[in-house]
């Protein structure tokens, strides 16, 4: 920042007098210094770059503006009730988003429940346990999971995961855990459980890559100090690494949550798309992103469209809050301020 000041600011700003001095008197002392050129191109360039930067601001502003103005109709018709009613009836113009909010939250939390232990395990293995030569390939392969498009996850889930759940996993769960009420009903395969599992697979690389990042940021001395006290490797990881990195790991988990909340295609393809609130995870559900994906281009009637945009607005706000929270948490660890142990 100080270095930028060295070269540039001197060239900006109207300074016609020193310019002449440079060309005439200082030319001998500093032979390489050519006459200072016109400042106009510099100014145009910096303005153009500023314009690009402002574009980013404008885009987010535009997103918020579009979502708010296009959902007005539904907001005026239903108000806050919109989020607490479970009736979604386009024919009679009755719209309540509760089943979608429920589906989004349940599928996302289910995904986190499955993904977090795995992701942290993977991160621990890669950073602390694996042989050096295996580290980079493992990191690359897990990150490859993040590069697979959501529609391909969905395709795989429809033809591989869902039949597997229907034939083996769900009957087994129903038989032994059916009494909990979470696993009862006919095992269709398609439903909340399938959506949660496919989301978990998609969230693991995000959580594990952030976890790895913050674990690497923990100073090596921490590990050495704990080991020197006679700790086993696991005790070292638990007290020396995980405890110091926990805020960042939590940030990674929340970032994963943000991804799960907004995920559309894979979930739409396996969740069953029925706006019901059911206790059983075998039952079909619906998420906020799925209902937009399925019904937006077929929405007839202004209120219908506005209701869908309002669902979008709610989803937008939810993911933004979650993401900002995550950024702050990751930031506290990677900016060299380890979380205090209590």
């Amino acid at each position: 920042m100080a270095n930028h000041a060295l070269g540039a600011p001197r060239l900006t700003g109207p300074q016609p007098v020193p310019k002449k001095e440079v060309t005439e008197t200082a030319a001998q002392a500093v032979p390489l210094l050519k006459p200072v050129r016109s400042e106009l191109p510099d100014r145009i360039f910096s303005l153009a770059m500023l314009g690009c930067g402002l574009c980013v601001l404008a885009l987010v502003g535009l997103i918020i503006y579009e979502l708010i103005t296009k959902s007005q109709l539904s907001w005026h018709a239903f108000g806050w009730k919109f989020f607490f009613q479970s009736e979604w009836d386009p024919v009679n113009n009755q719209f309540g988003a509760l089943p979608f909010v429920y589906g989004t939250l349940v599928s996302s939390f289910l995904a986190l429940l499955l993904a977090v232990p795995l992701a942290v395990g993977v991160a621990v293995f890669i950073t602390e346990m694996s042989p050096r030569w295996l580290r980079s390939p493992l990191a690359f392969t897990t990150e490859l999971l993040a590069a697979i498009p959501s529609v391909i996850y969905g395709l795989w889930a429809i033809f591989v995961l869902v039949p597997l759940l229907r034939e083996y996993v769900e009957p087994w769960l129903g038989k032994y855990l059916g009494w909990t009420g979470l696993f009862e009903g006919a095992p269709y395969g398609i439903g909340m459980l399938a959506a949660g599992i496919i989301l978990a697979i998609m969230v693991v690389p995000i959580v594990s890559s952030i976890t790895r990042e913050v674990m690497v940021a923990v100073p090596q001395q921490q590990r050495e100090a704990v080991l020197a006290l006679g700790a086993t490797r696991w005790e070292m990881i638990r007290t020396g690494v995980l405890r110091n990195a926990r805020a960042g790991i939590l940030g990674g988990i929340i970032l994963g949550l943000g991804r799960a909340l907004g995920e559309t295609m894979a979930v739409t393809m396996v969740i069953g798309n029925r706006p019901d609130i059911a206790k059983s995870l075998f039952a079909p559900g619906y998420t906020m992103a799925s209902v937009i994906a399925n019904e937006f281009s077929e929405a007839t009637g202004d209120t219908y469209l506005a209701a869908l945009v309002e669902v979008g607005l709610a989803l937008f706000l939810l993911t933004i809050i979650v993401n900002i929270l995550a950024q702050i948490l990751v930031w506290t660890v990677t900016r060299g301020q380890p979380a205090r142990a209590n």
Partner: protein
Amino acid sequence: MAASGITARMEQFGAAPISIYRRAMNGFVTLAAAGAVVLVLTPLLAIFGYLVYKGIGSINLAFLTQTPKPVGEVGGGMANAIAGTALILLLASIIGVPIGIGAGIYLAEYGRNRLGNLIRFTADVLNGVPSIIVGIVAYGIVVLTQGHFSALAGGVALGIMMIPTITRATEEMLLLVPNAVREAAYGLGVSRWRTTLSITLRTATSGVITGVMLAFARVAGETAPLLFTAFGNQYWNWNINQPTAALSLQIYTYAISPFDDWHRQAWAGALILIVLIVAAVSAVRFAASRGTLKGAN
């Protein structure tokens, strides 16, 4: 530094032996972590395995050169969808790459102030916006204005999604360029804009390209924002103002259809899409491993 080795050595020096419980716990956690790796890699292998197994037999000349057949007829291909994806990605790059790089230059070279922080924060927010929301916005600003679905609308949606990734990557790479390089240029009397473009950006070229490719790979398989922007099409289309097919859309439509032949083609399309994306990501990995500042020479 294997901990077991360390504990063994400690015992050599007469330290108290580690209790069986602590050893067992250590071993259990090590096994559990290795198990987690296996469990995470299983779906990856399963997905790639299935893609290759199901897809490779369905990729033939017809698939790559023909348009879809009407419902019920066997055969046909996804040629128009492959071309459509290329068209939409081209439009997205035209929109996203210059703005993304420009904003990155602003952040790195001029953005050490409050406005810069605000833009940096906003770029991160934009990065977290669900793709389906971007689709709604592109629908609002392009489709409603034009009055119909179009490739342009799809390009705008994907372009918006490319910007934050490219911005942050460009900024990061430009900040890696040593200030001495800039100062050397200033010292020779080179103007600031020229320094930024021909010296700084040039030096960081491979890093910036990495960012662009990552953004490209990220949006190449996007489906949600195209559902109500590009919309899809059964025919050849090169007009950016008309609805256009895309590989990802076609995979989605075919996957949820009840026809076996369409399922077969969905797998083939998915294989082509993943090869495209993995090639892009691997190229990035390769370029990145050769040093971020390679563009210097």
